[in-house]
């Protein structure tokens, strides 16, 4: 748990370089967060840090209040969204994808079959459209092609939820590193696949609006 004010002089402390969003908000490093509790903590800390209340303070305190408020808002924004929260945890634990190369890498093996089928279907649909087929014909086929991909996304959401629960249980049980790292590895794989699936769906959406 972070300390935001000097215990002796009660002045707001400058932020410094290090920090982590969970500790900052006084939360354990777990993936299940009660939204109402997050909101409550966010409001309470906002009331302590906000620059509005430091207008007459020293420049150093005003600076600290701006830094602490900004960091609080950034933390709140990330922790409030489940996916961004997982992404952040992976970064924090050193399990983030290594950079844009890894994020945009080849088709994840588990998705090969769907992606292959989808690409074939998309080619055919484009041909249909180029050949002057009525919009409702190729649009119907596009909608149908979206079905299996959306099913995969739903399955992924469920996977991410159960993995999150496993992570939280591991934290609670003080599980050994090996077990925790296993969960983080899986979370990272699911997240990369999820991004890939989202790109596929965005591609279909683009075709629909073409």
């Amino acid at each position, binding site marked *: 748990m972070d300390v935001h004010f000097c215990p002796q002089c009660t002045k707001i402390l400058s932020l410094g370089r290090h920090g982590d969003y969970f500790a900052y908000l006084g939360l354990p490093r777990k993936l299940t967060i009660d939204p109402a509790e997050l*909101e409550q903590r966010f*409001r309470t800390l*906002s*009331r302590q840090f*906000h*620059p*509005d*209340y430091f*207008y*007459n303070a020293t420049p150093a305190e005003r600076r600290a209040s*701006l830094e602490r*408020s*900004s*960091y609080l*808002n*950034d933390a*709140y*924004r990330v922790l409030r969204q489940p996916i961004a929260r997982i992404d952040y945890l992976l970064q924090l634990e050193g399990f983030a994808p290594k950079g844009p190369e890894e994020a945009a890498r080849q088709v994840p093996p588990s998705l090969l079959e769907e992606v292959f089928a989808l690409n074939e279907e998309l080619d055919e649909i484009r041909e249909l459209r180029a050949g002057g087929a009525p919009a409702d014909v190729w649009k119907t086929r596009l909608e149908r092609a979206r079905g299996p991909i959306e099913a995969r996304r739903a399955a992924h959401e469920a996977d991410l939820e159960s993995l999150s629960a496993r992570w939280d249980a591991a934290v609670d049980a003080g599980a050994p590193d090996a077990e925790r790292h296993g969960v983080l590895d899986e979370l990272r794989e699911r997240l990369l696949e999820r991004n890939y699936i989202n790109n596929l769906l965005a591609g279909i959406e683009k075709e629909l609006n073409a």
Partner: protein
Amino acid sequence: MSKVVGIDLGTTNSLVAYVKDGVPVVIRDRSGDPLVPSVVSVDEAGTVYVGREAQRRLLVDAGRSVYSVKRFMGKGLDDVGGEARHFPFRVAGESGGVVRIGLGEREFTPPEISAFILRELKHRAEAHFAAQGEVDPDVDRAVITVPAYFNDAQRTATRDAGRIAGLEVLRIINEPTAASLAYGLDKRHTGLIAVYDFGGGTFDISILRVEDGVFQVLATNGDTHLGGDDIDLLLTSQVLADLGGAPGAEAVQAVRKAVIEAKWELSESEAAEIRVDLPGRAYRKLVTRAGFEALIRPIVDRTLDPCRRALADAGLEVSQIDEVVLVGGSTRVPLVRRLVGDLFGRAPHSELNPDEVVALGAAVQADILVTGNREMLLLDVTPLSLGIETMGGVMSKIILRNSTIPATGSEMFTTFVDKQTAVDIHVLQGERELVADNRSLARFKLRGIPPMPAGLPRVQVQFQIDANGILSVTAHELRTDVEQTIEVKPSYGLTDEEVERMLLDSFEHAEADFAARLLIEARNEAETVIQATEKSLRAPEFDAVARAELAAGERERIESALADLKAVLNGADRDIVQEKTQALNAATQHLAEVMMNRSVKAALSGKSIDRL
């Protein structure tokens, strides 16, 4: 202790308010009018008029009057080229640079024109505090409101206007959020609130959650180029088409005034007549409310999509909104109320005067800042995503729209050639993919990167959006821990040096403006005395009174004092005007007493003065 105020710097009207004994109040002029029309005009002699007088001058000297300047704040000439032809004033400037507006013989930037309005509000407030017997009636600090959807350039221009007017701008806050503060005063409102703010020139929608006195904006959307002005323009064009020919600028203003009055009337009645009296032509046209609504429907419809987008960004359904609040003069139009009611499925609130509510909220915020009162807290968001230009002319987003402010974001940069010591960075605001479709905010040159092989430096650039929604940038190289210097060239704004110079200019002119104001006041007073004297001299009973009551030569002394004052009345020397006014006052004092006694006696004896 000098005073702080809240200012609503509107497209059509501006207001100033302050917190008195815990309650926000709007400061009115002597006739009880809270509004200062956002119009600035200058006469041939160089005297600047602001507000009602400037508005009157639009009808007689349109080419020397400027209105709706808010539409030009933070804009480049290229942004406003098409629209400028609708205005009677000159709009100039360099392509790619800030707009310049012709006011009489001089040219001003939009922040300078806005500063005239702010100075008028400052004077109004100072006169009010002085009249209240305050020891220090000076107003030197203010919270100024802007449309929530204003970008960084428009916010910065507003802050610059405040500085040029000699005000320390404590905070720039968003109009809909300010309105919610004013509404939240009685603590009745908790839950999810939609603030629909349709003003003279801009439209905003903000979705807020209010809980424990924290006013948290969840999402905002809008159009900074959509307001009552557009309705007026549509009606004006119709009438001008009816009239035909090539009307002069004053005729256009007469039409504009007439259609605005008809628009107001249509909020109360089912029909209104547009009445324009031009030399040699009396134009009359009956407009029904149904016809008016059919005409303006497309404009009002344009407000609905931003509402839906804000709800989607907040992750809310329409049915979850607990209350809808209306702000801005254009929400008086019944069609607007009806469509907003339909969209949200509930009757909107409008208990507070939609013209005044924003200024009241600004006053509350000013009070919070100065007193440290922690009862309420405003948490606003940045309306537009902030990013930088990357390879291929694509914008890479660093701080997403609807992020609670203050907020930060950072990006790592490196070099492309060996020993490169500077990197160019182009900062943008907007939601579109391509750089060209977004707003260019500024170009930075990062200097002082230690010479290293290409790709090795790691320069972290930190973007900070403060509680005003205004951006600042810092950078440092991580390998050497060297702080970089940043040169800012705002794309459509003023540099600090320019603002400083304008502030100094305004001091110089402020003295001239102040002198002009005093002269006008002295003339007004002189005219009052002249009129009263002439009335007495012309009165039927004067000869009888003079014979019976006046001393020898008294009448001649009055007449010569009167002639003296009339001779200096139109001069530029205020002291002489005042001196001669006092002389006439002294010369007529005895006469005034005599006349007064006679009328009192007449009243007591029940006889009319006319019959004496």
